């Protein structure tokens, strides 16, 4: 099969997956108990309640709502937030980027440390360094994000007082718009601990996988040949051993992006980070279907997209892969 027809087939599969995902999303949020106004039942009279529900279209038959929902999405319209009474897109877009930036920082940190560390673990196989490294890695992997976050908070905030308790910027400071909000020291200062928390949690997988993969590669004949060629050892390690070992990590990294986005809610809660995960949990608690669905939808989209990208990247990076 040619690369092109492979890509086309994959796109076809992605579309099917996507449709199923959207349908599940719809069904999930229609069977959630309560409705968007139930939170405020004591503030609204029975009449006002009915009126609002009708206004939100929730009195329509399910299939009508379903068709409307798909039509909306097709128009790239995420609908109105039922609580904020504002376009969901406006609410979510900033949070989406807040989450993406934080998780990207965490993942980049995690994969940089993980790949480097994993390579070293394999390179120094059988030493005390390796053993210690593995224990540390498994420790990091065993600590839920909220626990790591709490420990970091305890040490760096409550005890040493080095970092702020949470939030994304100092309260009342000048509000920058667009990219500007991520380009200040104040932002970095606020992002250090949450990013670190994520990085610690995520780095276990790449480190261990890299180590295993490296061990395989290091046993390969060509590594010996590259050494015999008189190439610099670092060259052998990074240009050849690491480059070959990294292949299986590509898929994992893509999946990790999805996991990170989906799991961001925990870090965002601990560090009071105004991200999408928290917005989604709040929206679920408030029964703001549209907002929760949009957050869910964006997270799922990132995951589906990343899985797709991973497949293509893998084919691109490894010349041996055939398009089966």
């Amino acid at each position: 099969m040619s690369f092109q027809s492979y890509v086309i087939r994959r796109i076809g599969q992605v579309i099917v997956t996507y449709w199923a995902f959207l349908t599940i999303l719809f069904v999930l949020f229609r069977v959630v108990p309560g409705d968007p106004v139930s939170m405020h039942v004591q503030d609204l009279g029975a009449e006002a309640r009915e009126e609002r529900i009708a206004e939100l279209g929730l009195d329509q038959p399910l299939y009508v709502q379903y068709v409307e929902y798909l039509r909306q999405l097709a128009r790239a319209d995420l609908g109105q937030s039922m609580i904020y009474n504002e376009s969901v897109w406006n609410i979510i877009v900033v949070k989406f980027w807040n989450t993406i930036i934080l998780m990207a920082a965490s993942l980049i940190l995690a994969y940089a440390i993980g790949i480097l560390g994993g390579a070293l673990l394999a390179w120094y196989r059988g030493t005390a360094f390796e053993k210690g490294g593995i224990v540390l890695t498994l420790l990091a992997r065993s600590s839920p994000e909220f626990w790591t976050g709490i420990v970091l908070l305890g040490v760096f905030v409550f005890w040493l007082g080095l970092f702020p308790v949470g939030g994304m910027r100092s309260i009342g400071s000048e509000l920058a718009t667009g990219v500007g909000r991520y380009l200040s020291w104040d932002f970095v200062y606020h992002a250090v601990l949450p990013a670190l928390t994520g990085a610690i949690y995520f780095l276990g997988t790449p480190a261990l996988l890299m180590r295993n993969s490296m061990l395989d590669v290091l046993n390969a004949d060509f590594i010996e040949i590259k050494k015999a060629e008189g190439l610099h050892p670092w060259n052998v390690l990074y240009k050849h051993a690491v480059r070959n070992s990294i292949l299986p990590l590509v898929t994992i990294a893509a999946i990790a992006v999805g996991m990170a986005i989906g799991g961001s809610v925990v870090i965002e809660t601990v560090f009071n980070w105004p991200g999408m995960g928290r917005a989604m949990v709040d929206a679920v608690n408030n029964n703001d279907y549209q907002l929760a669905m949009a957050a869910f939808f964006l997270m799922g989209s990132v995951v589906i997209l990343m899985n797709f990208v991973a497949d293509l990247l893998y084919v691109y990076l490894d010349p041996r892969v055939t398009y089966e």
Partner: protein
Amino acid sequence: MTLLEITDLQTQFETSEGRVHAVDGVNLSLEANESLGIIGESGSGKTTIAKSIVRLLPDNGEIVDGEVRYDGDDITEYSDRQLRKQIRWNEIAVIPQNAMNGFDPVYTVGDQIVEVITAHTDTPNDEAMERAKSLFQTLGIDEDRVHDYPHQFSGGMAQRAMIALALALDPSLLIADEPTTALDVMIQDRILHRIQELQDELDTAMIFITHDMSVVSETCDKIAVVYGGRIVEFADTETIIKNPRHPYTLGLRNAFPSIMTDDQDLVSIPGTPPPLLEPDEGCRFAPRCPFAEERCWSETPQSEPYGDGNTIECHRADEHERIRPEASKSETWREQEEVIEADD
């Protein structure tokens, strides 16, 4: 002129079971443009000899004694950097057993040739690529195939590409470790001829490591027979093929179809190669040797010179004229096999 002179080389491995004496006092010499075959069963230490020369030993291995003189210099004394800069690939190149695995699968073959050229010389990339193409031509591969990835080559072609890689820097010595075992017989033959031709053309010395007597008989000037980490017999090819003196060499000869004596039935040497852990006194081949005497069990034989620079390490070397015909018979070895089984 002597290109390579190995004296009393000892290489050992540290393992959980103890110290393995993989190479245990080896002496060898090789003239420029000469080709040497090193032959032995797997586990005999023949590959370790080759790896000791370029010092490509695993982490748990080390050269504990002896010299490897290359062009007069003892390269065991070289720092890693010196060895890397001056010896590896510049002077000594290696051809691995399975060429397909010798290439990094994620780069094109051409890129890998370019890489080694630019690592050692100041050649610009495009010139290095030209060099790679001309090497491909020399080896009879379509030069456009430098842009192909290793997995796109057939086995024989990959082996030739590997040779092209080995020749990239005009080395003075090629070490080929079982270069053709992975290939089928027809291709094996063609490649061996090609190597021989190239060696003549390029004035390169060559060490050929194999377990296959017939391979070395065609390609090499001299042959060293390795057993238990020692060279038990070293002589010119003709002597080894026609008049070997060591019972092990004689046994090896029986194990392969020979062009010269095609009516023989093939028989392998019974038993297994010795463990190389802290060897005891006595000839290491004694347990498997149909001609072992009492002293073979108690005294370690020493290397004795004979003829023109040949050596032999056997207590009964003097009796070779009598032993040789005995050893040609398959019954001799079959009987020995029964003895060994009885012992177990």
